[in-house]
């Protein structure tokens, strides 16, 4: 295929060249195990220290509050399970939302089914934002943890994290946020927002796959999730993924450095794309909040058509995108996020997520709009639901 326009940056991103370059020496030269005594190991250790500093700086944390994991999913599992274990004698109630990533939702289900937890899944409004009154109302004396994602991966809605953190703090409840989509995309300050734990994943910000971190505020004494060696100050066992950690550090530094300029451009392109699609294609609607929204996220539902078909035709035109359709995922239910904002099944099926990167151009988007028009028309012709 000659042309390729990658608009699925919420799924994963291209690892930046400078990130790969930062990683390379740690494969074949500075390959020492950081736990060892000799000099070669000291190089690995220093590289980890540097990455930890680079990352901590992005969210206003101390370096020793950053614990590397294998990704956002592990970080989410860790935060929930270990907090539950630490505090289940005090209370068994966790509050989260209906629009969390499966890494949170399925961990909650596990805790409910196997470990006696009680979980409240908060509704969101039609734009995908949690209502603070609902949160306040859901709190009980047994509530030990509030976990609300910073920004949603499907519809890009950004939650009132600061206010949620404030409420958690006032009630003396730990607050975890899944910031996998937000880290490096929007400013985050763990102190200002009263965040006790925060999950993130490198491959969403042009870092490598298979590395993430959990921020754990000093004083939050959750156990380690993976038991073994004394790595990560005895809190996360396993030989450190040195190249991955180095790559994450480089990617975080880069994301923070370019954030303002990059997201300003992306926001403009995002709004341009939204405007063109919603104006030029009938029977479609924007999902998620028009303003409190990730700078690179566009999510639109097209009535009468189904997402997977749309994606395959887009792929045929060289456009990589994703959908909240059941048919794309292996599970058959349409996106729980789209249902949570009130879309009926058949409309949730016809949703399309386009997530931009710093490489996206206006020309790309013009091409996408043209193709989209053709494809949507074609699929509607095929649809038993559409009568023109």
């Amino acid at each position, binding site marked *: 295929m000659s042309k390729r326009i990658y608009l699925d940056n919420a799924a994963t991103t291209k690892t930046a060249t400078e990130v790969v370059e930062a990683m390379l020496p740690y494969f074949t030269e500075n390959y020492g195990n950081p736990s060892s005594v000799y000099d070669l190991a000291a190089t690995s250790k220093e590289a980890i220290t540097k990455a930890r500093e680079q990352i901590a700086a992005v969210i206003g944390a101390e370096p020793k509050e950053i614990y590397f994991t294998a990704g956002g999913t592990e970080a989410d599992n860790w935060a929930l399970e270990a907090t539950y274990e630490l505090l289940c004698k005090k209370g068994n109630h966790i509050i989260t939302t209906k629009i969390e990533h499966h890494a949170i939702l399925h961990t909650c289900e596990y805790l409910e089914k196997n470990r006696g937890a009680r979980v409240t899944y908060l509704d969101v409004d039609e734009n995908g934002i949690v209502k603070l009154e609902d949160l306040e109302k859901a709190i009980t004396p047994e509530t030990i943890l509030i976990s609300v994602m910073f920004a949603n991966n499907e519809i890009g809605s950004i939650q009132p994290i600061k206010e949620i953190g404030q409420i958690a703090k006032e009630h003396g409840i730990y607050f975890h946020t899944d910031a996998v989509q937000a880290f490096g995309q929007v400013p985050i300050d763990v102190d200002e927002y009263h965040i006790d734990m925060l999950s993130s994943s490198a491959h969403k910000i042009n870092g490598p796959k298979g590395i993430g971190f959990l921020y754990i505020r000093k004083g939050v004494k959750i156990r380690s999730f993976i038991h073994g060696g004394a790595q990560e100050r005895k809190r996360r066992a396993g030989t450190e993924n040195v190249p991955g950690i180095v790559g994450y550090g480089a990617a975080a530094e880069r994301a923070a450095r370019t954030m303002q300029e990059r997201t300003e451009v992306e926001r403009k392109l995002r709004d341009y794309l939204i405007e063109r699609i919603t104006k030029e294609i009938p029977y479609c609607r924007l999902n998620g909040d028009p303003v409190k929204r990730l700078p690179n996220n566009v999510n639109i539902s097209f009535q*009468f*058509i*189904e997402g*997977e*078909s749309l994606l*395959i*035709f887009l792929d*045929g035109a060289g456009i990589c995108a994703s959908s909240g*359709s*059941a*048919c*794309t995922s*292996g599970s*058959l*239910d*349409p996106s729980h996020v789209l249902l949570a904002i009130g879309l009926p*099944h*058949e409309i*949730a*099926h016809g949703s399309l997520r386009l997530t931009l990167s710093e490489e996206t151009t206006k020309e790309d988007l013009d091409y996408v709009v043209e193709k989209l028009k053709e494809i949507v028309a074609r699929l509607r*012709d*095929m*649809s*038993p*639901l559409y009568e023109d």
Partner: protein
Amino acid sequence: MYSDKVMDHFQNPRNVGEIEDASGVGTVGNAKCGDIMRIYLDIDENQVIRDCKFKTFGCGAAVATSSMATELVKGKNIQEALQVTNKAVMEALDGLPPVKVHCSLLAEEAIHAALWDYAEKHGIKIEGLSKPKSDIHEGEEEEEEEY
């Protein structure tokens, strides 16, 4: 993830459309994935399917199986058409990914539903054909992963 045949039938689906005053029309839906398929049959006086068209709201596999199923039943008589099972359609498409097998059931059921409609309209009974369920996946269990 799809075979070349599936991709071909998906990207260039045969027999898309409607038949006016069709001899039989069948619409089926899959409650789980929300997909819908409608099949139109034009059946002549010898009970041979002269023409067949479809409209599908569904995934790539659903579209491709609709297309292939309509191809397969065209020109067949009713009894032959009843033999066009989802397995036959899948084979003709060089297979489907496991998670997509259920989509092919949609095509089989849509044909049956259209034949049932035809039979009702003409007051005849077709051997081996029973009333279509309103939802073909009613009561179907989430497939267990075989570990």
